[in-house]
């Protein structure tokens, strides 16, 4: 099955810093999503981005499907950005997502 690797596994930032999280996957995919799990455990969908670039406020994501990676950019980080960020992929919108192990982000004031 598809393998999903996320890096770095852990990241500590000062408030206001920028960061880039990376997701590599082993096969061609037609579905890629980024999620944020907050410290209370809630999973929030950030982006549905099988290809191209999207932006939502301070967050943006880019997927280069031909090279099998995706990047999540967080600018001007805030303490509320803390939590775990997951990348998940699948072959199509009809097949279940396979998750990476996540990047744990801690933003310090």
């Amino acid at each position, binding site marked *: 099955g598809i393998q999903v690797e996320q890096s770095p596994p852990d990241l500590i930032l000062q408030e206001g810093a920028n960061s880039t999280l990376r997701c590599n996957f082993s096969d061609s995919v037609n579905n890629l999503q980024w999620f944020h799990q907050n410290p209370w*455990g809630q999973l929030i*969908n950030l982006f549905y981005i099988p290809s191209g670039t999207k932006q939502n406020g301070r967050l943006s994501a880019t997927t280069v499907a031909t090279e099998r990676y995706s990047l999540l950019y967080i600018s001007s980080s805030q303490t509320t950005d803390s939590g775990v960020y*997951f990348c998940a992929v699948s072959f199509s919108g009809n097949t279940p997502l396979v998750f990476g192990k996540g990047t744990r982000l801690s933003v310090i004031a």
Partner: protein
Amino acid sequence: DAGITQSPRHKVTETGTPVTLRCHQTENHRYMYWYRQDPGHGLRLIHYSYGVKDTDKGEVSDGYSVSRSKTEDFLLTLESATSSQTSVYFCAISESNYGYTFGSGTRLTVV
């Protein structure tokens, strides 16, 4: 999140007892999923459904069964709970080519 609820939120049960977790949606989405989350493993798929009475196994399906008798409900049953099934269980819903929406999770402890 609005549109999807899981129950119970927390449960402690004894080894060997049956346990059923419920996922309820009001979005009329076709696809429903059960994942478990464990430290060091991320989220792993247990079972999923692509319609009423249509289900399939995921990566970690042993010891679990599911049922979907109507669009809005997807039940996960542990026939005989074991300590290795202590975990946080998440339900998710989706329509084809759209993002997943997750429930708030059920924390299950098997003692």
